[in-house]
């Protein structure tokens, strides 16, 4: 195979993967109404609630600790430079804007991608290799509706919620730094934050987190559905889910940040 053929083959593979993701996203969207508590299928909402607990509630301690640490690190790094210009109070702006626009959605996506994206892939991959997915098909049950849709709805709902929590914990860490370094009180810190954050920042952050959630659940589930072979294939799928979702999250982040940057009016 010559170089051109090799490149062409890889491009086709990647396009096919993106096509598969798009089709699965459509399948997930179509199946989602069957999960809602009103007008949905029996038992689906209960499954979705259980998934929300796993994806959201169980991930909260990790998200909280990571956000606190990242917020404190950001505050220290910014403080070290801003102190030289006598502008220590701008640490609060840096942390508040940095978290709502960028760090909150990104940190949350990495935590959920690492925890739940890999878990989705491993769970569905195991169902594939033990013929459970085949069993669903032979029962005339759509695996997208039975397996994908509750995970889809749960992730779409919980990731933005976790992102808001991550923003809060990040800013709390920023206040911790400011309290230690300049005895800034919490009400004063909150007032500074409220002045520095625009509603648009919160909105774009939550919008990003929705996109990241879609990537995590789609990549995780697709890697699971594409599992072929035995237990080793399940492990490979889980690894692949984390690597691919992290890569796609960064790509989507660049894309959306560029759009928000270009459309921002001063």
């Amino acid at each position, binding site marked *: 195979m010559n170089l051109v053929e090799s490149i062409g083959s890889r491009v086709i593979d990647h396009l096919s993967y993106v096509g598969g993701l798009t089709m699965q996203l459509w399948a997930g969207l179509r199946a989602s109404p069957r999960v809602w508590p009103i007008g949905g299928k029996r038992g689906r909402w209960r499954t979705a609630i259980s998934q929300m607990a796993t994806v959201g509630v169980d991930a909260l301690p990790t998200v909280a600790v990571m956000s606190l640490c990242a917020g404190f690190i950001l505050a220290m790094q910014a403080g070290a430079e801003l102190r030289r210009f006598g502008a220590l109070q701008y640490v609060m702006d840096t942390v508040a804007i940095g978290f709502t626009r960028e760090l909150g959605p990104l940190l949350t996506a990495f935590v959920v991608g690492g925890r739940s994206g890999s878990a989705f892939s491993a769970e569905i991959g*195991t169902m594939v290799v033990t*013929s459970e997915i*085949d*069993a*669903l098909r*032979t029962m*005339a*049950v759509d695996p997208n509706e039975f397996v994908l849709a509750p995970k889809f709805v749960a992730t779409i709902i919980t990731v933005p919620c976790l992102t808001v929590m991550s923003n809060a914990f990040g800013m709390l860490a920023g206040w911790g730094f400011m309290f230690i370094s300049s005895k800034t009180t919490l009400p004063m810190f909150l007032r500074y934050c409220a002045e520095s954050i625009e509603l648009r920042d919160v909105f774009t952050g939550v919008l990003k987190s929705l996109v990241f959630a879609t990537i995590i659940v789609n990549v995780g589930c697709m890697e699971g559905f594409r599992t072929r072979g035995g237990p080793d294939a399940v492990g490979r799928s889980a690894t692949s889910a984390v690597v691919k979702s992290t890569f796609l999250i960064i790509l989507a982040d660049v894309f959306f940040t560029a759009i928000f940057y270009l459309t921002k009016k001063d």
Partner: protein
Amino acid sequence: MADPIISVKDLTVVYGSHSVLDGVNLDIERGEVMVLLGGSGSGKTTMLRHIIGLERPTSGTVRVRGIDVNACSAEELKTIRRTMGVAFQESALFNSMTLEENVQVPLFELTKLADPIIEIMTYMKLAAVGLGESAKLSPRELSGGMKKRAAVARAIAVDPEILVFDEPSAGLDPIVAAGLDELILFLKRAFQISMLVVTHELSSAFRIADRIAMLYQGSLIAVDSKESFQASKNARIRQFLDRVPDSIGHSAVVQNHFRELAGLTGAKT
């Protein structure tokens, strides 16, 4: 004579350059137990997966109740699948659910029955396979034989017209395997279900079969009543029935490989 409930015509399956099924024809009549025999790698499971519509053939047709499973609409395929129960070789029970919940999946998904009715039906199906007292157990807590019976309970949950078994006795001790044979016969008597049983267990095949079909290297070499099958003079069938091993050392491929290993180039085929 009534139309066969399952009709396979010229079924050909080729993966790459490897032919797995080569123009297979098979009719399964209503109410009969058809056993599909064959050695490992003969194409039994591939044929079963095509009959239940999990894979598309290279060519040929599979008709279930007169409908071509590869050329029908999604709704028609759903209707066919609702009339067909499948018990997989590895049981394929949902490990995250209890036995009771496993049986309830098709009832909740495919029917609009009220919850108390579903609970009664679940218990009836589990009791029919002798697992009435194990409803709350998870698949991890079951023995191999219990898992197989649980898979049967789930397969018969919505009263199918056709039951398909993939290697029901594989990995079971003779007593448990015999119990499963009796269960298959009981289901046939009680519910008048047409059955396709894929197996390589001879004793099981002769106990449950009305007719036996045998696959050899992707082709059907016999479709007969069990009495005629047992009396067959076909060399391959006799080898299978008399448990005569293949002489693997005489295989042309093996001979060639030995020659290559010995450095004898220009090996003859």
